[in-house]
């Protein structure tokens, strides 16, 4: 052994998001700065460093790692040990090493960074106006990667051979584009092209400028972005927006808009500092903002709503287009109703040909299609409504090792979750699982994540609803391979546990799970649930009383049926003596059938759904009797109650004990609303009073159970908590009652979060079972 007391060698392994974010150049420079020799390389699992030099330099190097790491990196673990010096003379970046079974974290796609943006608009830069400019700080990642390690041959950029200039940047350890896998320029990289509705090339000097003028003329243009196609039109033109709606057969669903800059957004919407930061973040999601001025965009963009989904340009192509157009543009997912986002050029023309007049396409293939994320800032924190671009596939960090589990999710807004070590890899938003395309998208995305993270779990968790396609998928998997362990998980238990895991909470909480539909342990449709929930079990403490859901999903699409189900079940024939608009328009034959359904439960499962309660009140007030998009009736009810000043009072309700649980009776609540309606009280006041009542009801039930069981933490989950008015009021009421409020953050409170809860519950259920067997 050499005895050079001053000179030491170490091997270091760094885990986290450390690939595709300029990490090796950073290590190279840090090593140089500290006068160390050695090498750094990516493996399938980590970044591996061997460093040699004076002992104190090595320690300085180790100390500086975390504080000076590149902005897009995340260091989760640094392991190091002294080793035998190998006598390196310089510090080098060496080839990636692939290790079987090892995995690494993959960076999400990142919005164009400020340096690239400056170059994009700099006439002297060689990438001036080149729509695919990127560097180690920004650009596509998840959507182009096919396998690990994250190197160019493993991406859809493999087909583009770098020109000498790009190659030189790529090879230069001190360059911002050192090993930037999608690195390219106008000489060697992807190109944009404008084509018409039949796929014929439209000649133009500048396809982006040409697309911009078509948009200004009121045309609909489908743009191929980073994760798929977006349908764009002039958001200030009611005519253009209506044309898009007609062609997409979506009369009311709110559309997102892209606005050139924060200043323009601030004219349009109220903007808090956290909202500004979120909009301009590398994730650059669609943020739901309170509308300030209704006259700056067409009222048809978000009909009857007080919030607007807004985003900033997040790819160079968007930046160029927005600069050319100079108008807010509607940007909505390029898909047929309910299907996944279209990502392939040919498929786009086939499927969107009836919607878009022109297509702005490019030849960088999208391997993993990914939608835009949607977020809101409420209660001073970011809440993700749809977790996709910019966020996935960053894992949710768990406060425990979850082993390897697959959670298949539920039905609508679906995601899946794969766990490994202390990570939960939640997929990006997959969509509503009832068509073939979404099922295939689910399967492909699952295979991609399994490949990227080298996972093939033996434990599979799924929802108890027997007819969800994700449930069927889980059961079919088991059919193919008997060694799988399959676990059904109750929907609302999964909701609450997803909220706990999102917040790193491990001890049981009081859970309020309010949503539209979830299959209950008793075969009824649950949805207004108070649980005492831990990772491996739950107790149903209280719920809204059961009413029939006449016609199942039929009553969801026609909330007036739900209103009648409540009124007739709770108040009986008495309602016909009341002056209610809802009854006046009812046709005799329809009422006869509906009444029979309600009385005899013909195709009318029993439900305790909170979502349906909001729907029913909305219909009773005449706000929305039939819906065009999920949650519309409840959302428009929320809008009525938003910004209502003054004390509203509360509607009465009762809580009865029944078979060891509590049932919340709503007869008095509905009577109260009817009295107000008959007295001519405006809808806004009734809605506000109703929201206050539900918030008060939540805190009343939670407080009484908290006093019994001692739990002080209340987790709020389920799609109903996307209702910002309710979320704020519930948090206020609970805090006033001395309880701690736990809300979602990075994991959606809607069914997009279910898969995480399922995976965690399955892990704890299985490991507990194993313990019990010794």
């Amino acid at each position, binding site marked *: 052994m050499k005895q050079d007391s001053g000179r030491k060698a170490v091997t270091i392994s760094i885990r986290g998001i450390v690939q595709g974010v300029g990490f090796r150049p950073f290590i190279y420079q840090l090593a140089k700065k500290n006068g160390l020799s050695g090498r750094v390389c990516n493996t399938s699992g980590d970044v591996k460093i061997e460093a040699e030099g004076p002992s104190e330099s090595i320690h300085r190097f180790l100390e500086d790692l975390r504080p000076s790491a590149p902005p897009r990196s995340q260091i989760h673990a640094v392991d190091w040990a002294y080793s035998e010096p190998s006598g390196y003379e310089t510090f080098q970046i060496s080839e990636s090493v692939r290790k079987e079974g090892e995995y690494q974290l993959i960076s999400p796609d990142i919005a164009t960074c400020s340096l690239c943006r400056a170059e994009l608009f700099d006439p002297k830069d060689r990438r001036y106006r080149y729509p695919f400019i990127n560097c180690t700080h920004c650009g596509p990642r998840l959507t182009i990667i096919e396998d690990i390690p994250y190197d160019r041959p493993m991406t859809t950029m493999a087909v583009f051979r770098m020109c000498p200039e790009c190659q030189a940047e790529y090879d230069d350890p001190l360059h911002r584009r050192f090993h930037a896998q999608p690195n390219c320029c106008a000489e060697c990289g992807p190109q944009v092209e404008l084509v018409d509705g039949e796929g014929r090339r439209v000649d133009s000097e500048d396809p982006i400028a040409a697309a911009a003028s078509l948009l200004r003329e009121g045309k609909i243009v489908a743009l191929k972005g980073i994760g798929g196609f977006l349908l764009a039109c002039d958001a200030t033109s009611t005519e253009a927006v209506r044309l898009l709606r007609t062609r997409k057969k979506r009369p009311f669903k709110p559309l997102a808009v892209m606005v050139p800059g924060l200043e323009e957004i601030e004219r349009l919407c109220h903007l808090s500092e956290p909202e500004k930061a979120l909009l301009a973040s590398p994730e650059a999601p669609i943020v739901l903002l309170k509308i300030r001025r209704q006259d700056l965009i067409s009222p048809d963009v978000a009909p009857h709503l007080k919030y607007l989904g807004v985003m900033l340009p997040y790819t160079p192509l968007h930046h160029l287009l927005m600069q050319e157009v100079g108008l807010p543009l509607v940007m909505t997912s390029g898909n*047929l109703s309910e299907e996944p986002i279209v990502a392939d050029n040919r498929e786009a023309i086939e499927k969107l040909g009836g919607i878009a007049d022109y297509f702005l396409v490019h030849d960088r293939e999208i391997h993993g299609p990914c939608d835009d994320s949607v977020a809101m800032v409420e209660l001073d924190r970011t809440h993700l409504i749809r977790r996709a671009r910019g966020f996935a596939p960053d894992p949710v960090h768990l406060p425990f090792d979850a082993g390897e589990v697959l959670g298949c999710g539920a039905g609508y807004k679906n995601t899946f979750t794969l766990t490994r070590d202390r990570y939960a890899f939640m997929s990006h938003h997959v969509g509503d699982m009832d068509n*073939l395309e979404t099922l295939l998208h689910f399967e492909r995305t699952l295979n991609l994540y399994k490949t990227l993270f080298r996972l093939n779990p033996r434990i599979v968790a799924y929802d108890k*609803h*027997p007819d969800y396609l994700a449930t069927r998928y889980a059961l079919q998997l088991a059919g193919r391979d008997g060694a799988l362990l399959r676990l059904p998980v109750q929907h609302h238990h999964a909701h609450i546990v997803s909220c706990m895991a999102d917040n790193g909470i491990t001890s049981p909480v009081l859970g309020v799970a309010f949503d539209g539909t979830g299959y209950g342990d008793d075969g009824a449709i649950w949805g207004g649930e108070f649980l005492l929930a831990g990772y491996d079990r739950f107790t149903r403490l209280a719920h809204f009383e059961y009413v029939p859901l006449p016609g199942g*999903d*039929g009553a969801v699409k026609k909330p007036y049926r739900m209103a009648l189900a409540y009124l007739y079940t709770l108040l009986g024939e008495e309602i016909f003596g009341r002056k209610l608009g809802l009854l006046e328009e009812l046709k005799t*034959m329809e009422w006869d*059938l509906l009444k*029979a359904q309600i009385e005899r439960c*013909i195709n009318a499962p029993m439900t305790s759904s909170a979502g349906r309660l909001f729907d029913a009140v909305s219909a009773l007030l005449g706000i929305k009797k039939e819906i065009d998009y999920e949650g519309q009736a409840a959302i428009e009810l929320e809008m009525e109650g938003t910004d209502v000043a003054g004390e509203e009072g509360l509607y009465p309700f009762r809580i009865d004990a029944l078979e060891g649980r509590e049932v919340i009776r709503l007869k008095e609540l509905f009577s109260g609303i009817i009295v107000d309606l008959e007295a001519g009280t405006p809808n806004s006041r009734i809605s506000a009073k109703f929201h206050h009542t539900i918030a008060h009801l939540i805190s009343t039930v939670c407080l009484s159970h908290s006093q019994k069981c001692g739990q002080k933490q209340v987790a709020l989950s389920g799609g109903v908590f996307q209702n910002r008015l309710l979320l704020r009021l519930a948090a206020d009421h609970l805090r006033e009652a001395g309880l701690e409020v736990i809300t979602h953050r990075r994991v959606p409170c809607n069914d997009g979060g279910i898969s995480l809860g399922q995976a965690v519950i399955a892990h704890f259920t299985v490991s507990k079972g194993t313990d019990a067997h010794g």
Partner: protein
Amino acid sequence: MDDKILLAHGSGGKMSHELLKNTLLKTFNNPLLNNLDDSALFSLSGRLAFTTDSYVVTPLFFKGGDIGKLSVCGTVNDLSMVGARPLYLSLSLIIEEGFPMADLETILVSTLKATEEAGVKIVAGDTKVVPRGNADQIFINTAGVGLVPEGINISSRNARIGDRVILSGPIGDHGIALLGEREGLRFAPPLESDCAPLNALVSDMIEASGNIHSLRDPTRGGLASALNEIAESSRAGIRIYEEAVPIRDAVRAVCELMGFDPLYVANEGKLVAMVPSSDADKVLARMRRNRYGSGATIIGEVVSDHPGRVVMKTPLGTSRIVDMLTGELLPRIC
């Protein structure tokens, strides 16, 4: 004669004999049955098809039929769906004590008429009477034998890629009509069950093409279940077009109002066929000349995509997966 069925009618004694002689034999008067041996004796040669089904239905009498007609049509249709020419049926009655004799006679007459229409004979039978509450009025079991013509090979396993999916007429009539009768709902316009024997239609189809691959009558579980069974057995995908599936306005309206999906509603006089595309037009034309196939139409095709799955193209252009249901139709929208 008694006006109600008594336990003694099933005792095997004198009253049983009288019931047999005065009611059953009088109705189904034919030499094979009249022998009154313990078994019917007959000779057949060729490939035989043999099936049985039990019929329990509420209410017993409904617009378009009753339990008697249903018990003949059901078994005749089961035989027909493998291409067999139905010949002989057995008829076994389990009657609840106190069941009105007049109703029994009505049911038997209607049973007879159905056999006459289908050209089959009841050649064996049995009657049991159970104490009040041990059965719901009357249950009927029929079994049937038929002869499969030479060269015919029809099976759920035989659907081939490229086959056309032919449906013999509008779906959902039976299920919705029965629902109305059972629950006392008044539909405007009123609906009638489509209960009918399909053997003549099938033999017309076989005459038009000796190459029909699969046949299925979409009874319980509706068209969706029938198609899923074929897709699964044949390991092929089936694609249908929502706008091509015929549904009467009245059925559609009730389904819409009550939240039923017509694809899952029962039929008793419809069939779905998988026919090679080259023969589809011939078969279709022939079907339309038959009263039970006058509404026949092509609703889709067998495809290589999504083997084992049934997918329905919606007017929006999306592809809805039409799965078999686990149980009742349940809400899914969150």
